[in-house]
């Protein structure tokens, strides 16, 4: 009956693990729900000082944790590229990244992020690269327009392209000539302020409703994205 005993032991471990997980899940859910409810009540019951103070404390803690999360992300990036050093093809890039990461971080710690030296780093590296990446997007968007017309010519895409064209014509004048009368005076403002705004309002409401539902599910414990099942 050794197998039976083994089986029992296995089951016992399973049961124990399940119990621990259940307790953990409940604990995490209680924390999430309690913190959420406190903050939410702070919105709607601002007259209760204790609640307001607790809400302020919770919000401050959340801010601190968000800053700590930044370091978790940085550590993750660091470890990823440390691992990639083993890959000969990618090692050079990873070395570059790690050197600049550590260098910038050290400089920031020593001199402060708003120091002139950090300003130089920011204006000579971060702004040029980010802006240039954004500039690449201009080419990509035009390229995407052609592809859209070529391969996805349906009602929605044609409406999309025509609207974009009208906005193009209405936003900027013809080079060295001037604004295009009908488009810039009437059509562009009307489209941007009526149908586009209507669609945007619908989208915003949809997003808000979705946010509401998701938030409520978290506060009810139905969703637990922090772990636990």
């Amino acid at each position, binding site marked *: 009956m050794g197998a039976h005993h083994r089986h029992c032991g296995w089951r016992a471990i399973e049961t124990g693990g399940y119990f621990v997980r259940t307790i953990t899940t409940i604990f*995490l859910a209680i924390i999430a729900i309690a*913190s*959420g409810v406190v*903050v939410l009540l702070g*919105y*709607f019951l601002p007259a209760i000082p204790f609640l307001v103070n607790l809400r302020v404390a919770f919000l401050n*803690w959340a801010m*601190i*944790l968000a*800053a*700590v999360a930044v*370091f*978790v992300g*940085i550590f993750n*990036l660091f470890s990823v590229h440390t691992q990639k050093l083993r890959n000969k093809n990618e090692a050079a890039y990873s070395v570059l*990244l790690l050197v*600049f990461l*550590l260098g*910038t971080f*050290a400089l*920031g*710690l020593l001199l402060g992020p708003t120091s002139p030296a950090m300003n130089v*780093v920011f204006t*000579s*590296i971060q702004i*040029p*690269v980010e802006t240039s*990446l*954004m500039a*690449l997007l*201009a*080419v990509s*968007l*035009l390229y995407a327009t052609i592809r859209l017309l070529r391969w996805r010519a349906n*009602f*929605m895409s044609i409406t999309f392209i025509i*609207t*974009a064209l009208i*906005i193009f014509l209405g*936003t900027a004048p013809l080079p060295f000539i001037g604004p295009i009368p009908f488009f810039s005076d009437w059509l562009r403002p009307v*489209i941007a302020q*009526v*149908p*586009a705004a*209507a*669609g*945007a*309002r*619908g*989208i915003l*409401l*949809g997003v*808000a*409703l979705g*946010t*509401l539902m998701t938030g409520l599910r978290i*506060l009810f414990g139905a969703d*637990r994205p922090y*772990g*636990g099942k």
Partner: protein
Amino acid sequence: MQAIDIITGIISCLLTIMVLSYLVGDNPLFRIAVYIFVGVSAGFVGAVAFYQVLIPKVVMPLINSPAENLPMLVVPLILGVLLLAKAYPRIGWLGGTSMAFMVGVGAAVAIAGAIIGTLVPQFIAAIEPFGLGSANGIGSVVERLSEGTVMLIGTVTTLAYFHFGVKASGQGAGTRNPIMRIMGLIGQFFIAVTFGVLFAGAYAAAVSALIGRVYFIWNFFVSFF
């Protein structure tokens, strides 16, 4: 022009060209620029988070605050340490508490913001043009009514477009309410228009960046003459 400006300008120009070289195709120059950027960006964010958050909100209060306030300071400290455990997969589960706390607070803020900041004001704004007594708005009553009607239709049909509810059918494939389907089609038009405007806006933003880069390079080049 000072030496530091020249060095900064040269580095900026080089990095700009390296990134724009992606237009030719993916190449090592582009990758170098991007990896440098990511490293600098991460290091910068870390320095900012340390200097502008952790020091004023954690370190300084621990040093300066009276002892009775310490418990309120220790809690975020513990939560922060637990959250750091997330960086290590083996002990990552320790960060669950911090995550639960952040998620709970974030959910509450999002709920309140959505209700107070978007749902209520936007619903009111959607029906506001039909309040003929109000003096708001420009133009005649007819204009405001027609504009409000279009806005309302657009808003409702857009919402209908995002409504994915289907009626269960025996065949397994659900059927959509015909009214909702028609409304969804109308909403599709409004969404396409909105996306068209968004697209034009994105192009404007990207082109502005391109113009800024070209302008910078040209001015830097001209500054030597």
